[in-house]
């Protein structure tokens, strides 16, 4: 009897890219619901819009590059990219920003570099940063959590704002929008107010901003679930949050009136989301266990530096892109010791 031959191993693998991405999406769902709870329908509209744009751009690029469409569209990596972008932008972001930002992420940051597995930078962060730099006004129009707002938009109103740019009668942008906690302390510190004065406002909630602290707590749970499911490793998140807590704690101890507490830094901005969902992006991050520690620590450090002394309120996206540049070098210098070999001598 004749048989077809294949190479070993012969046990079929249990994982697939689709499964990895699907689990990332599952882990994003609770946090997404939480943001929507606090900041309104706009979050869900953005997610839907961004995912649609991502899938459309992915399909078009695959066709243009003459790659098989089905396996790559169904790997869900584009969905993850669009979804993360949508979580990073303000809830009432105009549709064209999502379109340009996600389009830029998929077309330029992902496919022009070779598509899945080949992009040196995290596409969602590239898209986000490009929009922050190009459209600073639109990208900082955050809303106060709904519990603080005078009026919450319903779905039709939200759609009208996002797609037509029309606010409901009698409202102006200044009336409805507010800054993020990080934005707000940056602005008010510049006005020579002390942190204890600034944070006395109900806007700042228990530790890190009303709404924000809950959202980040739920993202944290999602991230821990990903570690437990072995979708990501603990290295990058622990190193990133650890280094952020360490350096913010150091400055906070020196002068708590100017430098915010570690808890504020961990739970106010994009630190948690960045640590578990973006710094762990396998493609653009470091790939050795030791390298992931270095990578994460670098992101935490740079994010703090940008927050404390830079001109942008949050620095996680920039920090991740900067460390993406370093990843190949980090990998080179952090190779694990091979079994049966004495610690390797590295030449540059």
């Amino acid at each position: 009897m004749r048989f077809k031959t294949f190479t070993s191993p012969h046990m079929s693998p249990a994982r697939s890219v689709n499964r990895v991405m699907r689990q990332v999406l599952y882990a994003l769902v609770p946090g997404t619901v939480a943001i929507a709870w606090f900041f309104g329908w706009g979050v869900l509209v953005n997610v839907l819009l961004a995912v649609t744009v991502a899938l459309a751009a992915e399909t078009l690029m695959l066709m243009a590059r003459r790659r098989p469409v089905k396996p790559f569209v169904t790997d869900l990596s584009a969905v993850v990219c669009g979804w993360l972008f949508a979580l990073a932008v303000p809830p009432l972001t105009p549709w064209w920003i999502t379109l340009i930002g996600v389009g830029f992420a998929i077309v330029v940051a992902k496919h022009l570099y070779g598509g899945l597995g080949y992009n040196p930078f995290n596409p969602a962060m590239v898209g986000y940063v490009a929009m922050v730099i190009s459209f600073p006004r639109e990208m900082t129009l955050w809303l106060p959590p709904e519990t603080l707002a005078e009026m919450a938009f319903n779905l039709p109103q939200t759609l009208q704002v996002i797609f037509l740019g029309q606010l409901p009668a009698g409202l102006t942008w200044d009336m409805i929008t507010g800054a993020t906690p990080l934005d707000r302390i940056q602005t008010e510190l510049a006005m020579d107010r002390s942190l204890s004065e600034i944070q006395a406002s109900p806007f700042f909630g228990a530790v890190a901003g009303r709404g924000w602290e809950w959202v980040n707590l739920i993202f944290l749970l999602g991230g821990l679930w990903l570690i437990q499911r072995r979708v990501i490793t603990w290295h990058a998140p622990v190193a990133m949050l650890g280094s952020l807590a360490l350096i913010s704690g150091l400055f906070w101890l020196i002068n708590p009136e100017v430098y915010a507490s570690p808890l504020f830094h961990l739970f106010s901005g994009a630190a948690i989301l960045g640590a578990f969902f973006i710094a762990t992006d396998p493609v653009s991050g470091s790939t050795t266990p030791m390298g992931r520690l270095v990578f994460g620590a670098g992101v935490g450090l740079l994010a703090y530096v940008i927050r404390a002394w830079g001109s942008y309120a949050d620095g996680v996206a920039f920090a991740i892109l900067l460390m993406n540049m370093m990843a190949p070098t980090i990998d080179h210098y952090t190779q694990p010791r091979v079994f049966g070999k004495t610690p390797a001598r590295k030449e540059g």
Partner: protein
Amino acid sequence: MTATPHKLWRFNGGLKLPDHKAESTQETVFKPPLADCLTLPLRQHIGELAQPVVKAGDKVYKGQIIARCDTYVGAHIHAPTSGRVRGIEDHPVPHPSGLTAPCVVIEVDGDEDWGEHRMPPIEDLQNLDPARLRHRVREGGLVGMGGAAFPSAVKLNPRPQQTVDTVVVNGAECEPYITCDDMLMRTRADAVIQGLLLVKRALQPRQCLIGIEDNKPEALRAMTEALGGEENDNIRIVALPSRYPTGGERQLIRVLTGREVPSEGLPADVGVVCHNVGTLANIYRAVIRGEPLISRIVTVTGSGVQRPRNLRVPFGTPISHLVAHAGGYSDDVERLIMGGPMMGFALASDQVPIIKGTNCILAARSEEVDPPGPVMPCIRCGECVRVCPANLLPQQLYWFTRARDFDKAQDYSLFDCIECGCCAHVCPSNIPLVQFYRFAKNEIWSQEREKQEADAARLRHEMRQERLAREKREKAERMNRKKQALNDDSTADKPATAGGDPKKAAIQAALERAQAKKATQGADTTQTDQAKPPSDIGTQEKTR
């Protein structure tokens, strides 16, 4: 569990795999009737090809040597039963290439007649001399039963500068589906222990550690019983956590002793010799019963056969014969594998024989083996790093191999890869990683071979050029000298001149010629030494 508590160490990575061992352990080992014809490849071991010492038409007895291999790393091949040699023919052999190789083909007569060919049992065991044990093991054609088939006598002969203080016995059998060692320990634990005692007498180690994965409670029990009172004699049976590839030689030594075999070294470098349980049972058979290595237990399993079980069969039995005695194929059998599902290789046909290293025949249906989807790009998730027992960076090796950057792959320790398949098994992108590493290794070997050949050729050419130039020069000198001598003769016609001079010159010239000739010969011999192709035994051994 009666096993003595023993400190265990860990190795990086590895996998918990569904072990699929229950399927083939429902029945005890079965000895099927002989096949009509046995096909014995001349190479069933690591090392040189054995040379046939029989010819077509010869009557052979059971246990008779039919092919000798007298190199240090090599093993004789014996007739597994009595019969008549049909011929020495090229026949498909169990090899991933599916190519043919020379084999001795025996038509079985069914008499199982040993003739005079049973080796005399060694009686005086108390004074068993290591050299005598080695000789017996060599004469018996014993090779490692774990799959690599490395000649056993070599492992019983540590180099003088190496002191072996630990004998590790490999009963881990970590690869899914395979149960031949399990069944051997269940049914012939006494033979394994007796074999170990023989090795112990020869090597005089401080301790003997028998490692058995804890998914084989019956084997553990049988071995502990067989060991009986020997426990305190520094022989320990250790239950190991089941984790593929604990049964890899280096991994097992690490788990049991905490020692790491150096990357370029052998277990003896850290004072350890490792033998498979099957090998020990064979040592016992060879010494006490005088039987050479002519048969083995083979697991025939997988959902592709109707009645998975273990069979004891003589070497040379065609796989189709084994499958027939395992209930035959299921209807939708898809793939036939020699060895286990992680490291075994797929066979193109079931008309190839069982050889010394065959531990398992796995017939799989498509749902067991088919990849779940197409190959995707590497997303550098690092799951392969997490499971690699050699602590490599498989994703980087893959990257370099794809880019054909073999130097870089070697910098990243490509040759420390043991091809266990863990990385490919967990790869979410379905990349056949191990195949890339095999490809890279083969490319590097062939490049090295080509380079050595080219170097040798260049050296030969340079030597020749030099020799030609020298000969030309010498010829010119000789001509000159002769001319001068003639001139001297013609000009100096005084007979009274010292007649010794020309004679002396002639003697001198002859001496020079002789010396020059010697020098040339010397150069020639060095040249042939260098041109000799390098033996690749060492590298082959490392890949297994």
